[in-house]
């Protein structure tokens, strides 16, 4: 199937253990650690080490979390030392490792340093800013909260953004600037910045999706933002001025809601804007190579090429989350989480 594509997805490992639907995975940006969260209210941590030209993943720890409902979302701080969890119990948990440093992962214990309360209903997504000084969370209560991270796990709420008219499904920070994006059940995307003399405010609303916007992913260098929707499309928004974003491309390739997208550097060189991976209710994974049009061309349309695809990535299950490994040397490594409770790791390899 799809023999014409230059790459294929090779299963590296299938990690079982969650007792219920796995909602999200998050790669630690510094250490060889992969975290997953689930409706079973736990977080599972895996480490990975090279082994015979492949990678060996081992389950090293489970955090029961104490959340009273589904753990929906996960985010590592840029330092890799702190993990945030967002739960349907409306709280955000902040976790740090106690003891067991210097490689002795199994001796480590993960403790809840603080619990951020504020949302009235299910928290659906959490995200750290690139500097690690800000944390955003969003909820069915239609709000987005921006928290400032102080030493000793102290958090201060810097703003409650009440711009969306419905559930907020996802928050995502720009990879280098303090720009926050949120996606909603109200079909829109909102962009926010901090006004030094005032508060956080929404400076732009991106409209065009015809149904719930489930996920957001910034391009690695930050000049583009991708969004995926229940309308079965992915849109790529280009930064055309400092505070202006326009739709530059629409991608199709899924038959059911596109629950998750991730934009990694890829392995096709500097001319590429990177690899965009998507997945959703149809159980399919697609990987696109996204490029800017050559200087000579007058068109503004981004070029895109589907380079790999895989159906039934989690057998008959929906796939809820997809994520590129952010660590150098692992740009071809993808993880997914499915309704079957499993976490799978994939390597993008040239097809034969």
């Amino acid at each position: 199937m799809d023999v014409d594509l230059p790459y294929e997805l090779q299963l590296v490992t299938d990690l079982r253990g969650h007792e219920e639907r796995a909602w999200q995975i998050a790669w630690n940006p510094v250490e060889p650690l992969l975290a997953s969260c689930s409706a079973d209210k736990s977080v599972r941590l895996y480490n990975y080490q090279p082994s015979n030209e492949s990678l060996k993943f081992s389950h090293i720890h489970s955090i029961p979390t104490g959340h009273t409902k589904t753990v929906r979302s996960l985010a590592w701080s840029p330092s890799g030392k702190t993990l945030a969890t967002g739960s349907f119990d409306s709280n955000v948990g902040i976790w740090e490792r106690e003891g067991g440093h210097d490689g002795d992962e199994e001796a480590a214990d993960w403790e809840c340093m603080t619990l951020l309360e504020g949302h009235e209903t299910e928290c659906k997504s959490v995200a750290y800013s690139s500097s690690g000084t800000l944390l955003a969370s969003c909820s069915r209560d239609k709000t987005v909260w921006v928290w400032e991270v102080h030493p000793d796990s102290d958090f201060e709420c810097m703003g409650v953004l009440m711009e969306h008219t419905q559930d907020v499904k996802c928050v995502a920070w720009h990879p280098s600037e303090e720009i926050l994006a949120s996606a909603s059940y109200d079909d829109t995307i909102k962009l926010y910045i901090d006004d030094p003399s005032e508060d956080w405010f929404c400076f732009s609303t991106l409209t065009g999706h015809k149904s719930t916007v489930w996920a957001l992913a910034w391009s690695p260098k930050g000049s583009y933002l991708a969004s995926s929707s229940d309308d079965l499309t992915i849109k790529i928004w280009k930064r055309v001025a400092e505070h202006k974003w326009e739709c530059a491309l629409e991608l199709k390739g899924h038959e059911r809601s596109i629950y998750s997208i991730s934009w990694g550097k890829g392995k096709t060189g500097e001319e590429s804007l990177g690899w965009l991976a998507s997945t959703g209710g149809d159980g399919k994974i697609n990987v696109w190579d996204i490029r800017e049009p050559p200087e000579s061309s007058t068109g503004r349309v981004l070029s895109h090429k589907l380079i790999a695809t895989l159906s039934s990535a989690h057998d008959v299950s929906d796939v809820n989350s997809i994520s590129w490994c952010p660590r150098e040397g692992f740009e071809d490594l993808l993880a997914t989480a499915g309704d079957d409770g499993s976490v799978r790791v994939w390597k993008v390899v040239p097809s034969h």
Partner: protein
Amino acid sequence: MNGEIFNPNPTVFALSKRSGRKSKFETGRSLWIDNEGPLEQTDDSEVESIDQDEIFDLIRSIADPEHPNSLEELRVVSAEQIDVGQNHVTIEFTPTVPHCGMSTLIGLSIRVRLLRSLPQRFKVDIKVKPGSHQSELAVNKQLNDKERVAAALENPALVETLEKCLETAGMQSELYD
């Protein structure tokens, strides 16, 4: 939920004959759960097919949340409003009145019944009959948002109400056998 009755006087229709065949899913369990001795090995080409009537048998006896009647008696559901593909089921239902505030609850009870009964390979879409509800799009959107459905099913009060609607869901076989 606040005691308001959306349709105080619904029309109750006579029940139709059931399909006559005993559904494999009647127990409310997955087909793959072994309750009749060892399951035969099935390869992909021999996936058990399911038809309209079997799906209808699963949902016809669900109780209406505000009346002592089944969804079939109120003509909220019918076999004709069920579309079955290889791995895909679409259910359309008809609220008794266009302002029915119970529509999402009815839709959710259908979804949960199928979630518990059908093999996992089935993707289920649930919609109100076009033109039958004043908030048609909002109801459809909510019923097909898996995150909202998942969160609803972690709400104990809502689950209790749902279980009441579903208590009668397996009664079909007793009525006619």
